[in-house]
C-alpha cells in the first residue's frame, strides 16, 4: 500500500536569487568595489560603452561579460588588459546571481575598484534578477525605435541611469531622442538620463560623472 502526503514547500525561486545577490553585494562592499549592471538590447552599445569607460575612467575596472557566446565581447574587453570573465549563457536570456557569484572567483577582488557586468542583450528578462550590484544602467539606442522606452517600462523603472545612445543617427532612423527621454522620465521621475553618441564622444563625460556621483552617495 502507498499513501499520499501533501507537503508544504513554500520555496520562493526569486528569493533564492535575492539571497545570493545580497551575499554578492556584501562581498563587493568588503572589497570596497563599486559594481554596475549594464542592461540593454542587442546592439544598443553596451560593449562599446564599457570599452570607453575602461579607457577613460580613473580606477581599476574588471568586467563580467554575459552573452550567448561570451567569447566575442569578452575578447573585446581583454584587449584593454583588464580582468575579464566571460559567462556563456547559451539559450538563457539573462544573468542571475548564481552565475555572478561563480564569476567572482576569477576576479582579483583585492585589486579592482569597479566591476562592470554586461548583461545579456535583452530589455525584459534581466529586470527581476538582482545581481547584487550597486547601480543599474540601461542603454537604449535610437535605432531600436523611439517607442522602445514606453514598451519596456519595468527596466526603466528599475534602473538608476538611462543612456539614450547613438543620437547622432536619430534623424537618419527617424527617431525622436527627446521622446525617449520624456518617456523614461514619466516611467521613473528619479532616473537620470543622458543622451550619448559614443562615435562622437558625446555624453561620455556625463556618464562617468554620473557613475562617480552614484558611487559617492
Amino acid at each position, binding site marked *: *500500500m*502507498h*499513501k*499520499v*502526503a*501533501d*507537503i*508544504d*514547500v*513554500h*520555496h*520562493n*525561486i*526569486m*528569493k*533564492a536569487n535575492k539571497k545570493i545577490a545580497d551575499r554578492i553585494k556584501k562581498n563587493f562592499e568588503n572589497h570596497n568595489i563599486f559594481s554596475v549592471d549594464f542592461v540593454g538590447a542587442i546592439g544598443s552599445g553596451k560593449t562599446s560603452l564599457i570599452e570607453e569607460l575602461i579607457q577613460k575612467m580613473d580606477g581599476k575596472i574588471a568586467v563580467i561579460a554575459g552573452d550567448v557566446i561570451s567569447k566575442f565581447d569578452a575578447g573585446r574587453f581583454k584587449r584593454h588588459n583588464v580582468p575579464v570573465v566571460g559567462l556563456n549563457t547559451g*539559450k*538563457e*536570456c*539573462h544573468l*542571475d546571481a548564481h552565475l555572478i557569484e561563480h564569476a567572482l572567483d576569477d576576479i582579483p577582488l583585492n585589486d579592482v575598484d569597479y566591476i562592470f557586468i554586461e548583461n545579456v542583450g*535583452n530589455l*525584459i*528578462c534581466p*529586470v*527581476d534578477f538582482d545581481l547584487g550590484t550597486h547601480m543599474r544602467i540601461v542603454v537604449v539606442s535610437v535605432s531600436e525605435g523611439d517607442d522602445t522606452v514606453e*514598451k*519596456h*517600462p*519595468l527596466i526603466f*523603472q528599475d534602473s538608476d541611469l538611462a543612456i539614450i545612445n547613438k543620437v547622432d543617427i536619430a534623424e537618419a532612423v527617424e527617431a525622436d531622442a527627446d521622446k525617449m527621454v520624456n518617456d523614461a522620465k*514619466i*516611467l*521613473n*521621475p*528619479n532616473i537620470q538620463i543622458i543622451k550619448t553618441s559614443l562615435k562622437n564622444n558625446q555624453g561620455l563625460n556625463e556618464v562617468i560623472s554620473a557613475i562617480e556621483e552614484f558611487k559617492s552617495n
Partner: protein
Amino acid sequence: MHEMAMADSILKAVIENAENNQAIEVIDVVVEFGQLALLNPEQVKFMLDVLSEDTIAKGAKFIIESIPIEIKCKKCSFEGTIDGSSLDHYAPIVKCPKCDAYPVDVLNGKDVIVKKISIEKED
C-alpha cells in the same frame, strides 16, 4: 522569456522536497506566479513536462496559480491590488489605478513560489 530557467528551478525544488519526504512519485505540484513575473504559464508548464521526464516528478500535474499585483503609488500613496489579468505578460505596464501615475512601488506580484506538492510514498 526565461521560462526554461524558471522551470528548471521549480523542478529542482520539487524533486528536492519530494526526495526529502521519501516520495516514490510526485502526483501534483502547485506553483504560484506573480502577475509581474514576466512568465508565460503555458510555456513553463510545457517545459516542466519535458524536464520532468526520467525524474520522480514524471507525469505530475502542475497547477499554476496567480499572485495578484499589489502596489503603492509614489505620487498619491494609493496602496492596493490592481487587476493584472488584462496585462500582457511580455511587458506589463503598471500604473496607479487611482491617479494614473507610473512611478509605483511593487509590493507583491513578482515572485515565483513552489507552494506545495502531493506525493505518494511507501507505507
